[in-house]
């Protein structure tokens, strides 16, 4: 898709861009990160990377595309608890667990690196600036989960979607996946519903309201925010929970 800039082909991979949003890295750090993420594997949409109940097979690093964490009820109803975007590492210390307590599944076509636990251990021990960035990233994952709980527990349907779009804009900007045309949003209404605790009917109505208010354009899987200030105000969006450093785009 022309609207997304897959930064793996650019000067820095999304993994490096994301960590540099938290703190400065040395050339040696960058070279090491580039080396361990050099050969991502193409993964089809809707592929399980990790399944609840199974032994973790390593730490997944998303280089392109979008994946999610989710859990299901026995009747099939699903709640998506997190989006994993380019540059996101899934569960730094997952090797400490004997069994996964949730699923990680691709939403779109992805490029993914699976880091063996020993590689993660080596990075944490020998590259303190990278280790700091990864720990910051884990804290931000937890802060984001708290924000999502607030979102589905206390915001209206239109506010929930608005907040999600504001967050995606900020996170994708850090990893250079946003341009003047917006960003790729390869999600169905059902997936947005599973994310925001709504029915797909309410998602359809809410998206129409956001369009009619002139706040967004969502066409062919690409989202363009037309009035960021009003969308943030509507959502009650405060970017602080993402803890972005000085290198994050304003």
């Amino acid at each position, binding site marked *: 898709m022309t609207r997304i800039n897959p930064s793996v082909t650019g000067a820095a991979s999304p993994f490096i861009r994301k960590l540099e949003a938290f703190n400065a890295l040395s050339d040696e750090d960058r070279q090491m990160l580039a080396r361990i993420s050099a050969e991502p594997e193409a993964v089809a949409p809707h592929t399980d990377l990790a399944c609840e109940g199974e032994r973790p097979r390593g730490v997944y690093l998303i280089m392109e595309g979008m994946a999610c964490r989710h859990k299901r009820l026995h009747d099939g*109803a699903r709640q998506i608890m997190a989006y994993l975007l380019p540059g996101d590492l899934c569960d730094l210390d997952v090797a400490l667990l004997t069994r996964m307590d949730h699923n990680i599944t691709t939403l779109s076509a992805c490029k993914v690196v699976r880091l063996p636990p020993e590689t993660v251990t080596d990075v944490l021990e020998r590259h303190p600036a990278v280790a700091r960035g990864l720990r910051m990233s884990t804290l931000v994952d937890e802060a984001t989960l708290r924000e999502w709980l607030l979102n589905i527990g206390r915001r209206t349907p239109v506010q929930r979607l608005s907040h999600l779009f504001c967050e995606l804009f900020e996170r994708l900007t850090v990893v250079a996946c946003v341009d003047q045309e917006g960003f790729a949003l390869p999600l169905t209404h059902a997936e947005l519903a599973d994310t925001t605790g709504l029915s797909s009917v309410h998602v359809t*109505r809410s998206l129409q309201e956001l369009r009619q208010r002139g706040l967004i354009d969502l066409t062919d899987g690409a989202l363009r925010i037309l009035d960021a200030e009003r969308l943030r105000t509507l959502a009650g969006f405060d970017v602080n929970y993402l803890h972005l450093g000085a290198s994050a785009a304003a």
Partner: protein
Amino acid sequence: MNLRLDPIQVATGCEDQEGRLVYKDGLLAAVLVCLSDLHGTDAGKWHLEAMFEPIRSASAPIFADLDEAQTWIADQLPGLS
């Protein structure tokens, strides 16, 4: 099936206005709304807009017609299934 349906117009904030109040034993039990063209291939189907008794499932499907909706609602309500 001891359900009664009354036509109603519902203020959903969009074109989905045609609705039914669903009564069980004279008490309002649920509100159904017919989906408009806004919903593409689901237009003409029925959405459970609200339900007022404790139900067994937190997520209701979209119903092809009112008979299917009543069957689902009856299955959820104690004493009707």
